[in-house]
């Protein structure tokens, strides 16, 4: 109605929100990749990678859900695209944090990577408390 004359207001709002979500995803991907290069040790790099997977994949997928629902010239196929994107987003939300959590926990417990430039290491302190 305002920018896209062939869409009704609801579809237009969904389209604009979808585009904004995709742009947030682009931002998160850039931030994550900068963090992967610049951060000093394994754990904070893993954190940066998670910014890339959650922010850079889940937000755009939700955006694609909204966008494909808005673009009515796609016909019936838009519901397939929307459902696929939505379910993929849910799957990534569930599994990606668990993956990075398991990686970080395994790396810390097996002491394969030094927690070197650090401010504090609460996990180690907890382990010491359990031992005592």
């Amino acid at each position, binding site marked *: 109605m305002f920018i896209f004359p062939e869409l009704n207001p609801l579809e237009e709002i969904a389209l604009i929100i979808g585009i904004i979500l995709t742009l947030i995803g682009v931002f998160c991907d850039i931030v994550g990749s900068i963090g992967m290069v*610049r951060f*000093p040790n394994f754990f904070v790099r893993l954190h940066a990678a998670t910014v890339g997977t959650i922010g850079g994949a889940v937000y755009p997928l939700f955006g694609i859900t909204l966008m494909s629902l808005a673009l009515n010239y796609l016909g019936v196929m838009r519901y397939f695209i929307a459902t696929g994107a939505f379910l993929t987003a849910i*799957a990534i939300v*569930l*599994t990606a944090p*668990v993956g990075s*959590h*398991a990686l970080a*926990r395994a790396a810390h417990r097996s002491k394969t990577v030094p927690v070197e*430039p650090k401010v504090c290491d609460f996990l180690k302190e907890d382990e010491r408390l359990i031992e005592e």
Partner: protein
Amino acid sequence: MVISKVRPRSEIIIGLGVALLLVLTLFAVIAGATGFTPKEDIRPLAKFYLYYAINWYEKKFWAASPEAVNSMVWDYRGYDTLYETSVFFLAIIGAIAVFRIPGVKDVFSKGILSGRGLSLIVKTITKLVIAFVLIVSIAIAVHGNLTPGGGFQAGSAISIATLLAIAAFSRIFLEERKITTKLMLPIRVLGVLGIGLLALGPALIALSGIMSFVIQNQPKPWADWGFIPGVGPFWLSGNQFFYNFFEFVAVGAGFTVIYLIFSIPELIYKRVLKK
């Protein structure tokens, strides 16, 4: 915080290499390296498949399946798939034979292998994911004659549930739920038997005088006998639905057996061999 200002030369070379690869790939794709780009009109090969896979007007040669790949695999190219299934069956028998050492039990009591598994977060999500995997793989198998997928794909998908359970919980988690090689071996034999009977069934009917041939699905001009393409709202594509289901059972149980055997620690084999 120590962050090196100067990057090593290898990192620069890797970065430049990746950038060059991306640019080259882009140029190659623009120049048409992906080959045939889809056109508006139907290709001759697609016409062939549409004519022979599902053709409501000329049912003489059809396979009654809207999935072209499935109709090729289980109908037109059926012998190939049958032998593929038997090769897979024999390969797993080989794997079991290699790892079969008398004295190594498949089921461990809790004392020998005490596995606590991964953390609570991982366990909770893995339970959810295993449920998803089971549902999706059954859907792939049952829809194999309608949408992309099929028996082998569904079987390999459901075996991932076993793999996840071994990684996140432990082998004992599966043993408590009676998922052992002792259970899985008969199940996969049942699956392969089902495929064999479905394939040879029409030939047995031929003995009674009606013209039919091995792995026949739909009636052909020279063999008037065939499976029912669908029952009510359920489109079975003749016997292809059952082929997919039995292949799913056989492959799923086969991969599960492999994962269960591979998750026996080397320590136990060594302990038995030393005796």
